[in-house]
């Protein structure tokens, strides 16, 4: 681990028509180190990484690899310079085999151009064994869990002998155990002299693995120094440009009567014996590993997945939930974990995305009142602090955090009594996270109930009044505030349930669907 600079960018500038996205960026990664890049969404991190990976062309400035100036015009050239990028949204072809995915775009061929399947298999097996992944190379990619797919992306990078690996939010969809595995891998790579640029919103991770930290804000480098000279609060205040009062704006609220009660909820092969309740003014959390069945329970409550048996009571009244509208009409709404898949309608405007579930508010006697709609939506956008150039902007062009706020505004428009949030802060910046926490607190203060599913334990501990822990389709523990600790939660999350009859749950939702068919 020397002081040799592996990758250096100097004076990088990038303007888009009328807009300066990056302003004289200087940034250097030492050989065999992990360099964390921190900044709010929109600070320019991804633009910078896209330039390094040849997706964007910089307007000015230089890129040096081993102190030799290089030109990177496209991703293929980046690959030639031994740069690999592991994107936040993993790119893979679900219907193709593991081996084809690992060597996608560079399948080994013989001199006639025929794919050399034997070589392909041999190479893939070598890598799979190296990473101790027990899959067959011919297995379809879609049968893998998210974290294993991520591991494969890393394998892909290694198989290409990458010397610089950019990882964009690599832990946003994997469990703690898998994070540990990833970090072990990163340590190995470091030892081999690979330089890693690590982008993450998770400060604890950054401080665990980073040797150096560079902080970006509004397209400029605010600071760049060894991690040992920084702490979490300092990084956050540098990122945001102001001091955060507190990360979790939790206020204690007098709780009232039970609003939602779930009894013996059961879904064949998915979850079993689910019993829990939420009181007015209460924020409850659901902890557990990915695949523990938390999302599936919430999806059933919201009418997206079928329930085999069990009862749901709202305000003591038994209700029947078969479809989403049943849930909505009982004032229960859910923000889905997968914003792209179940949340946004990408090509439509932010206004339409916000009003789609409350059209009866703006359509009277079969006629849509556009002005009224604008006023109502704008009012909620102001409340939620949504940053958008206009109401007609397509939602796909907003940052993740703002998309999430638009989706929250959509449900707030209905004035719900029970708000279910499934991984509400995944992949969004510190500022937007804070807005969401604030909203949860507001809801509780108004005597409403919030259910939060999260894989980030500090967030659950910081925001919840009670936490239920799930494992393998069962609720294995319930913790009240005084018993909160990461250790206690993890213990329940990994303990084997006494009546573990719901066998190994597949980690991915698609698999569950397939099983039902």
């Amino acid at each position, binding site marked *: 681990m020397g002081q040799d600079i592996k990758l250096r960018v100097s004076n990088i500038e990038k303007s888009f028509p*009328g807009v300066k996205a990056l302003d004289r960026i200087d940034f250097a990664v030492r050989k065999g180190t992990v360099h964390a890049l921190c900044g709010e969404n929109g600070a320019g991190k991804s633009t910078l990484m896209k330039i390094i990976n040849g997706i964007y062309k910089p307007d000015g400035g230089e890129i040096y690899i081993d102190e030799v100036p290089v030109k990177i015009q496209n991703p293929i050239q980046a690959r030639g310079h031994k740069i690999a990028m592991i994107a936040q949204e993993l790119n893979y072809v679900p219907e193709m085999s593991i081996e084809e995915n690992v060597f996608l775009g560079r399948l080994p061929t013989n001199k006639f151009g025929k794919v050399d399947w034997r070589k392909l298999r041999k190479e893939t097996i070598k890598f799979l064994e190296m990473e101790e992944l027990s899959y067959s190379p011919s297995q379809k990619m879609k049968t893998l869990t998210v974290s294993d797919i991520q591991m494969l992306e890393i394998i892909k990078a290694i198989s290409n002998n990458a010397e610089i690996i950019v990882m964009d939010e690599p832990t946003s969809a994997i469990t703690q155990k898998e994070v540990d595995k990833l970090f072990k891998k990163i340590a190995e790579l470091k030892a081999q002299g690979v330089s890693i640029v690590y982008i993450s919103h998770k400060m604890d991770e950054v401080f665990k693995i980073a040797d150096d930290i560079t902080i970006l804000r509004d397209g400029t480098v605010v600071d760049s120094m060894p991690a040992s000279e920084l702490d979490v609060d300092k990084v956050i205040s540098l990122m945001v440009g102001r001091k955060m009062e507190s990360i979790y704006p939790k206020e204690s609220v007098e709780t009232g009567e039970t609003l939602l009660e779930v009894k013996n909820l059961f879904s064949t092969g998915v979850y079993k014996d689910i019993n829990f309740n939420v009181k007015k003014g209460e924020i409850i959390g659901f902890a557990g590993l990915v695949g523990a069945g938390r999302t599936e329970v919430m999806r059933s409550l919201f009418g997206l997945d079928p329930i085999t048996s069990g009862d749901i009571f709202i305000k003591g009244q038994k209700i029947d939930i078969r479809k989403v*509208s049943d849930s909505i009409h009982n004032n229960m709404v859910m923000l889905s974990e997968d914003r792209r898949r179940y949340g946004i309608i990408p090509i439509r405007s932010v206004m*339409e995305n916000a009003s789609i579930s409350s059209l*009866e508010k703006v359509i009277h006697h079969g006629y*849509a009142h556009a002005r009224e709609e604008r006023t109502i939506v704008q009012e909620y956008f102001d409340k939620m602090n949504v*940053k958008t150039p206009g109401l*007609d902007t397509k939602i796909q062009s907003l940052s993740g955090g703002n998309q999430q706020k638009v989706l929250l505004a959509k449900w707030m428009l209905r004035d719900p009594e029970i708000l279910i949030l499934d991984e509400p802060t995944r992949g969004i910046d510190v500022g937007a996270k804070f807005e969401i926490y604030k909203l949860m607190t507001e809801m509780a203060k108004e005597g409403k109930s919030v259910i939060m599913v999260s894989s980030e334990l500090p967030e659950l501990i910081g925001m919840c009044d009670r936490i239920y822990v799930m494992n393998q389709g069962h609720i294995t523990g319930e913790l009240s505030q005084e018993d909160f600790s990461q250790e206690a939660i993890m213990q329940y999350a990994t303990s084997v349930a006494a009546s573990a009859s719901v066998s190994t749950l597949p980690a991915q939702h698609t698999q569950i669907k397939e099983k039902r068919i």
Partner: protein
Amino acid sequence: MNLNILKNKQAKNKFMETFSIFIVLLVMIIICSILNDKFLSSNNITNIMKQLAVGTILAYGEMLLIICGMLDLSAGAVLALSGVMSVSVFKATNNLLLAVVVSVIIAVICNLANAIMVTKFKAPAFIATLAMMTVARGIALLYTKGQNILQIGKYNVFGQGKIGGVVPVSIIFMVVITIAIWYILKHTTFGRSLYAIGGNEEAAIASGINVVRNKYIVFIINGVLVGIAGVLFMSRVNAGLPNGAVGYEMEGLTAAVVGGTSFTGGVGTTLGTLAGAFIIGCLNNIMNLIGIDSYIQQIVKGAIIAFAVIWDIRSKSKKTSKVILVDEDPETKGTFARKAS
């Protein structure tokens, strides 16, 4: 860069996105009127519209289906089936209203079958309506034993009649349907739901939209439109043709797509589709007026469709990327943050 400039830019983009197709149409009309001085005569304009009526009505059905991520390949065949049935009912009863009702009901039944295949059995609309296309054509031929139904008498009033001796009946149908479709798409919950379903079906479900019901409704509306088109078509050709209207679904699809309806779903407007239909109508008309060989006409038409679509995609993708950049603009972010704090 301040917020106002950004807002103006967005407003300009939105204007262009909405009206670019009309500018194309306008340019085309100007060129056509220069090429031939008869083009703008009221006679010729009426003629164009009369020829357009059936295609435009079918185009609206296709547009609604494409917006919510489907399409209808059976429109031409179902049109023929409901048309010949309608003609024979008229010949038996001499009742015009009944003839229209029969045509609409038959087309709606065919489209309900489409809807069931798509929603209940999860068949892709392409396959389901492809099957319906073959079946409906077969029934039409079976019913008529492959013979054209001639001497249809007063039935031709729909396609050839004029109200007050001036305004053709078919144009009135087209205008009324245009207004109705515009209203449905723009001002009803159903219309707004269609965009959401086509834009992201899973998100639409998670937003509480009843996707299955909306798909039934859209097929029923398509059925009504195809049924009316069947009456207008048979009436215009003055016969019940079981082999008629072959490929008319393509005319409808073309008008919708040229008019900016996106095959990826979630995008499309009534007026855009109307403009798309007019662009194709004008093109056909001017090529006939200046006497271009009909084989060459086909080639030109195809090329212009390809050009129109590529132009549309390019101009739209440019606009989208611009907005993304606006979002990344650190200064705007600052402006908003300041405004908020």
